[in-house]
């Protein structure tokens, strides 16, 4: 039958098409396309990191005086009264000695990033950006690395020179890589 043959040919063609698709064995190196494209809103919720060159710093500002008040209310219960330095586990925390915050860290941006994401320990991530700038202005001011009268913000924080920065020596990349890996190298 004429019509019958047409349908058979169409069916055969379809089969050939699908058969071809099935013959191309799926590979572990193919692209799969699982997951959803990240929206700006998706990223806004989690993109909180601040880099040592200042990328990621938010707007906002704070001063040593504001930070002192904040320290009294939200930090002191764990980090001790700095005048007394009465928490033995936190020696020289807010000073300028080696091992203190101002005496150790290479970049003030690291402190902004960490305080914002993880402090205070009983209510992590609860500080506003202004409060984080304030707390850091207080810490750096007490450490003698930032003017107590100045305002700490996304611009001034990059001018903070940490005295210990020169002593840090990155060990990556190693001088002699054991082997250069190709992008698709399997083990």
């Amino acid at each position: 039958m004429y019509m019958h043959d047409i349908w058979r040919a169409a069916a055969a063609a379809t089969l050939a098409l699908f058969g071809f698709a099935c013959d191309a064995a799926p590979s572990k190196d193919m692209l799969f396309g699982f997951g959803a494209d990240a929206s700006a809103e998706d990223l806004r919720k989690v993109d909180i990191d601040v880099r040592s060159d200042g990328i990621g710093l938010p707007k906002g500002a704070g001063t040593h005086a504001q930070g002192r008040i904040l320290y009294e209310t939200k930090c002191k219960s764990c980090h001790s009264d700095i005048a007394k330095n009465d928490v033995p586990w936190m020696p020289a925390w807010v000073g300028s000695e080696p091992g203190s915050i101002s005496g150790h860290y290479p970049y003030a941006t690291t402190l902004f990033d960490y305080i914002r994401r993880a402090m205070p320990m009983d209510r992590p991530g609860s500080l506003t950006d202004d409060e984080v700038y304030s707390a850091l202005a207080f810490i750096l001011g007490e450490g003698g690395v930032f003017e107590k009268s100045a305002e700490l913000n996304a611009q001034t924080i990059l001018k903070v020179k940490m005295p210990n920065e020169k002593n840090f020596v990155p060990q990556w990349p190693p001088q002699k890589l054991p082997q250069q890996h190709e992008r698709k190298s399997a083990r």
Partner: protein
Amino acid sequence: MRACVQPFVEISYQETDVMAKYRSVGDEISSRRAVATASSFRDENGLPAVNSEQCECKDGLHPSRDRRRFLAAGASAMTTGAATLLSGSALAAPPPGAKEYPVPVDPTKEPGLPTEFADGYGLRSQFETEARWRFPTPTVQFSWSHTPLQNSRGTITPSGLHYVVNRAGTPVIDPQRHRFTVHGMVKHAKVYTMKDLMRFPSVTRTHFLECAGNTFMSIPDKPMLPDASVQVTHGLTSNSEWTGVKLSTILREVGVEEGAGWVLAEGSDAAVMTRSVPLQKCWDDAMLAYAQNGEALRPEQGYPLRLIVPGWEGNINVKWLRRLKIGDKPWYTRMETKWYDNPMPGGKDYLFVFEMAAKSVITFPSGEMRLPMPGFYEVTGLAWSGAGAISQVNVSTDGGKTWAAAELTKPVLSKSHTRFTFPWAWDGKPAVLMSRCKDVTGQVQPTRAALIAKRGQLSSNHWNAISAWAVNEDGSVKNVHA
């Protein structure tokens, strides 16, 4: 009103400070130390009993476990003649992960427990008490807990005994609500559900993890804790079979842009912990693990998703992974500039020291143990290297004067714990046991002196020197420097 959290812990790398801060730990260990009692090595019926209940620090067993058996022995004496030696009430709470059942005099004369007595998820024997030991930091959220290596067998660490280091406690995460985001210098920023990730081709690989600070208490010239067990000295390393997606699979999906060189890995815990990972390693062998030893990750191991960076320091294997951001430079996060930096003699401070060096330790006999009598013992331990597979382990019983090859338990896997064994006949005289390993790249575990010459004693991290156990004439085993 919100309860005040306890002070945060900061470890200074001044050696003397560390010693002072952790003196309390030494006191705790000392008080736990069992006092040896004379033993005839015969039980009350005159039968040979090397594992006599009379000796608290006997052959290979941890005092805490033996103490419990002591209790059991006392209870059995009181109930002689009864059909059941012990009732649940005769003992204190059962060990974690176990339930207390009556013990029949003769298990062949009574029906056993129902086949599914544990509601479908097995319990361990009520006589097994191995447990992690938490370092007594002032906060229970920021703390670390050691694997009991002294009674470890084979190479796989049971998931429930895998060491833990937490910055802000273990978060409770619903996998249905967990999202994993990859963005930054990529062509297609993506958000994945756990189900999405599980659709990708999977890999299963066995790898050790080791905290960079493992064995830090052995760095000072005098062992900080001479009575410590190997759990205390070396227990921040464990070994698991991990299953997940190769990170390179995901990197291909998102399309990494030219010029990228680093990846920020971020956890979903209360510390929202971050580390910068070189992109090269991510292409090479890093993986996104959702399973450990055949089942989903344990909560304290990063459930539902963690980064596995084979052979690299534990902290970079970020748990509760919620985000990767691709960038061109490292971030200098708190973890990499404060906790996992490596202060050197002369004032320099090395950053981004990732790979765990070749290291081994004898797990039997080891600290807190006591050899009951001269005779044959199988010395055994673990060796591992972040650079590849272990190729050789040597053992010395004379403090490093002479060395002999130990046998490696096969298969020997890359960047994985390797079990070694060594037959030893103890003559009853003082002996000093040591092990040293070599890996396939030719790296040899250094002596204390060589390692100190290379890196000093300021850094608490990446200490991989040969360690020694002294066996005294009375059979007691101590942590010594040799």
